[in-house]
């Protein structure tokens, strides 16, 4: 076979494959984006699963339609900056934490989902960090006292299944976050994922065996991620009067 044949074959094959893949991708992009949106919203709902279940909406039974409905009716999506101001003009949907974290601190914008379930407010904060192999990210929900965790959900780009990937797959591990507190008095301490098991039951959860670096990544992600919301949290606490009574202690 001549060199010319090889070139012709290669060119035709490349063009055909490129057209096939580009066409398929274009045709399915809309549906894929919708699925991803619903998936991410379910991850956020998972952090307030308990109050939702009490309100008669167990998350495993929700259809895609109902998930979007909840976000329509019961969720206020706000954007805040590092100094805790709510930015009414910012576009919530376009915020990507990966790009925000690269900006200088005073220009960053962070998303907050505020749930209203049976008259109680729940704040879901989004965080992002690094695991062993790649990025990890998650959502953590605080009850209306802005201190007690109602739930957390995590996801990852490429952690090892059975080890680091347990942050997403291990429901028992994620359950530990329920009821933990991110403040010690009025000092921000975040939540520590401790290798060998939690010592301080209020602010620590058990590490994942065989996944120390991913566990440490979660600790770091929670600390940095929640720290970014600290001003916002402080302001909200001051508003609700919780903080004043705390300060008096």
């Amino acid at each position, binding site marked *: *076979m001549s060199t010319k044949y090889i070139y012709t074959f290669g060119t035709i094959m490349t063009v055909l494959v490129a057209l096939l893949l580009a066409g*398929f991708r274009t045709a399915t992009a809309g549906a894929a984006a919708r699925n991803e949106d619903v998936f991410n919203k379910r991850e956020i709902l998972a952090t307030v699963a308990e109050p939702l279940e009490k309100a008669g909406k167990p998350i495993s039974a929700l259809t895609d339609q109902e998930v979007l409905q909840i976000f329509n009716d019961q969720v206020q999506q706000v954007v805040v900056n590092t100094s805790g101001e709510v930015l009414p003009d910012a576009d919530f949907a376009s915020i990507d934490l990966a790009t925000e974290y690269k900006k200088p601190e005073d220009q960053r914008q962070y998303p907050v989902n505020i749930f209203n379930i049976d008259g109680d407010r729940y704040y879901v904060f989004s965080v992002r960090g690094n695991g062993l192999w790649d990025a990890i990210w998650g959502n953590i929900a605080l009850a209306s006292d802005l201190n007690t965790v109602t739930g957390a959900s995590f996801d990852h780009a490429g952690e090892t299944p059975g080890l680091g990937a347990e942050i997403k797959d291990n429901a028992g591990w994620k359950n530990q976050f329920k009821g933990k507190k991110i403040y010690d008095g009025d000092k921000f301490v975040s939540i520590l994922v401790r290798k060998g098991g939690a010592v301080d039951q209020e602010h620590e959860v058990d590490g994942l065996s065989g996944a120390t670096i991913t566990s440490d990544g979660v600790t770091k992600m929670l600390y940095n991620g929640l720290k970014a919301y600290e001003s916002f949290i402080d302001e909200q606490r001051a508003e609700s009067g919780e903080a004043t009574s705390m300060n008096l202690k």
Partner: protein
Amino acid sequence: MVPIATTAMAESTEVKTGVLTEDTAAEKEATFEFGKKEKILITDPLLDNNPITIQVLGVCSALAVTSLVYPSLVMAVAVTFVTAFSSLATSLMRNIIPKAVRLIVQLVIIATLVTLVNEALKVLAFPVYKQLSVYIGLIITNCIVMGRLEAFAMANKPWRSFLDGIGNGLGYGLILVAVGVVRELFGKGSLFAGSGIALNIIGPSSDSTKYLINTTAESGIGSFFGWYANNNLMVLPAAAMFVIAVFIWLQRSYNTKLVDIS
């Protein structure tokens, strides 16, 4: 046309030698018969010509994904799909592929197929896509796929290549799931964790997780297993190497004909 890659291949049947001679006229009237020779294409890779234990292909992913049964199963299905259809595509194109660049062409076929599967999953089953996304790259680099294209599909007719792809995918999957069962059961005390039918077999029950055999129970079966603890080595990839080695050992002591093959 193409030299046979593994000696194990030459051993198995006369199917391959028969079709090594090009016969385009016969190919035109391609049939989908499923006789004895076709059956061998499916059953042979399950045991006597297993891709992992005999051909020693695809070991890398077998070490990486087998810590849990469910991902092993998903990986097995995905690889079977890709080996089957890439074998089919390669076999259909085998007479027009320039020999000098055939590996590149095979790689393009595999990568295209895997990307299509990836995109289709995003639309059809997004949660499964999330589960599988880590392994997509592993499928492209899986030596079994390319090994079978080079050793079989480049020299055989489409239907048989398709069956060979399915057979090797299943043979790979069989070992993967078997290793996954051993590692998950002894490493974590559960089976199928992460799927809809997760089973917690043995371990200390707590409020959030209940085990079939509760090692902290005062009475019942669990009370005999108070000494039992999960083996953390099983969770690590190194354990897969030991488990696969034991499988190879068992298989060869059972069927000594296999000892000299590789």
